[in-house]
């Protein structure tokens, strides 16, 4: 099992969703993905841990989420628990020392994670109470 990234686990579940990582950078990206009918083929990668940005994706049955900031107490953490959508939060690449720090993280950190995960087929391992893992599928 190759762990590509890990972060806070929003909630414990035996679910192990698998899909190709799709980065969503704007509301238009979210709407386009929903319109494509391919929502359930993807693990969604987003920067923030807020919930409104992903609203329609959550509502229409997103299978798994990776965020680059936020925690289980963040709004997206709460909503992913309610939807039972596995969610790894504030993920960092295991191959990198770069870590998210509130108010002191530049774009390079986020871009590195995007480059490291986008387009890859992954599985979320989220049975641990604290740590969620993104593994190569």
């Amino acid at each position, binding site marked *: 099992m190759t762990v590509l990234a890990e972060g806070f686990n929003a909630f414990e579940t035996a679910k192990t969703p698998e899909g190709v990582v799709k980065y969503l950078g704007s*509301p238009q990206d979210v709407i386009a993905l929903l319109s494509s009918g391919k929502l359930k083929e993807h693990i969604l990668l987003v920067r*923030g*841990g*807020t919930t409104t940005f992903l609203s329609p994706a959550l509502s229409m049955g997103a299978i798994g989420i990776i965020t680059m900031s936020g*925690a289980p107490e*963040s709004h997206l953490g709460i909503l992913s628990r309610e939807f039972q959508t596995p969610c790894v939060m504030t993920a960092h690449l295991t191959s990198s020392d770069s870590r998210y720090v509130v108010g002191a993280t530049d774009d390079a950190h986020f871009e590195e994670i995007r480059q490291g995960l986008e387009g890859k087929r992954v599985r979320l391992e989220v049975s641990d*109470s604290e740590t969620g893992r993104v593994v190569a599928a």
Partner: protein
Amino acid sequence: MTLQFEPGQKATYKDRYTDADDGLRFQDLEFVGNFVGQEPLKDGILGDKVQKQRAKSRVLEKVSREDVLKDQFTIDELNDLNNYLAWNIWDVLVMRATEGVSGMIPRQEYEILAFMHEFYRWPEFLRKTTDQVGAAGILDIGASARREIGTKINAVHDWCIGAVGFGMGRCGLLALEAIKPDDYVEESNEILKFMQRVLWGKRQDGYILNSQDRYRGRIHDADFLETITNQLEELQPDSPDHEAFTRFNAAAELLSFLDHFDCRLGLGDTGPYELPNGNILILRDLFTNEAEYHWSDVCDDEGLPHAYTLAIEIDPNAMGLQEIRVNDIATTFTRPKNYIPYIVGGAVFAREKWDTPMGEVRNVKISELGPELEKVQRATLKLYRKVSTMSRRELIWAGHDVYYFGMILPHLRKAGTWDQAVNSWQIKEVDQRIANYYYDIQKRGFAQETVPLKIFSGSGYLPFGEGADIRSSKYAWLF
């Protein structure tokens, strides 16, 4: 910190309610605030205990109706409340605050504008409202929540009066150097008195905050609660009804967040209530259609009610429940974290308008949730499209409105002063100082870095000084 739990092990959450118990730690971080040079505070029950030990007054202990009806706090009481709220804010929000940018709604910007606006203008609205209904009338407003569901007179709104309007508003203005620590003491008293009275009237056990009572917000009278629990339907694990109930809970909660611009004012939990069979009940209000927000017209078009209320019955033993916190922003967190699979009963209610009488609140059978879910989903998509086309300025001021007048809207409505506030007191206007701050807060990372750091680290809640006078406002704008 790693806590591993085995579902199915016996629940131990009741241990948290014994005097000697310090509760679990939900996070590794520590709080310093104004306690520089002293042992940092922890989260949860232990943090509350230490705050009470360090207080200079009795205001954090159970207080009497006579105490609450007094018009003025002492400076020590104000400082104890300031310190406690700073810790409480950290306790409930420090981890949430790591969530970064929204990608859609500039929340930090709208939040800080609203905080400061509240501190400047709420004292007038709260004083005039108190003048009209009397101090005891404010207690009655709080008490009304004991026999209602689908009411925004709830933990999060009540907490916001003091924690946000006073605590964060004053913190933001201090950070902006617009005020000094001993300015606006009288106004601070006005805001905190209103908060104390509403919360005391609601709880009626002498405390005002859930964190003072080991994170319990059990406000409903037993006979009223029985009218809710009588409607509970059994939910078998993994059954279609379980799926329908939990999916509806999630979808309606999501819309409530969106209708309130990604903030917690859209939902409110009370509990945990222990049921006769040993299970626990959480009552959850989800506000899916707020008539005062113009963008909520899409919710209205779908025929959505002001609020859905979900009665959620959880089997604590099947879950191996170690601790449950219904915190002061009315959100439930548990250890283990995932309570959804252990929901064994549920009921759904709809309150059409904010003032629909309790006798007219309708029970929606779980077998009939399908059409309700579709309405919620359609409204979510329409609202998302609408919000995604709003300009940055529109988003900031709309979010500002959700906070600035939305936090005291339910109390003024109940007092009967809301229309006056709009028409005579001009609550929906923007104070010129705040209009000017719109530009200031967007410079040098003030909204996105400076203020969140001061608010969530606790370093920005400067105490009132020894020379502070309870009668003082701010008399000069000099340096």
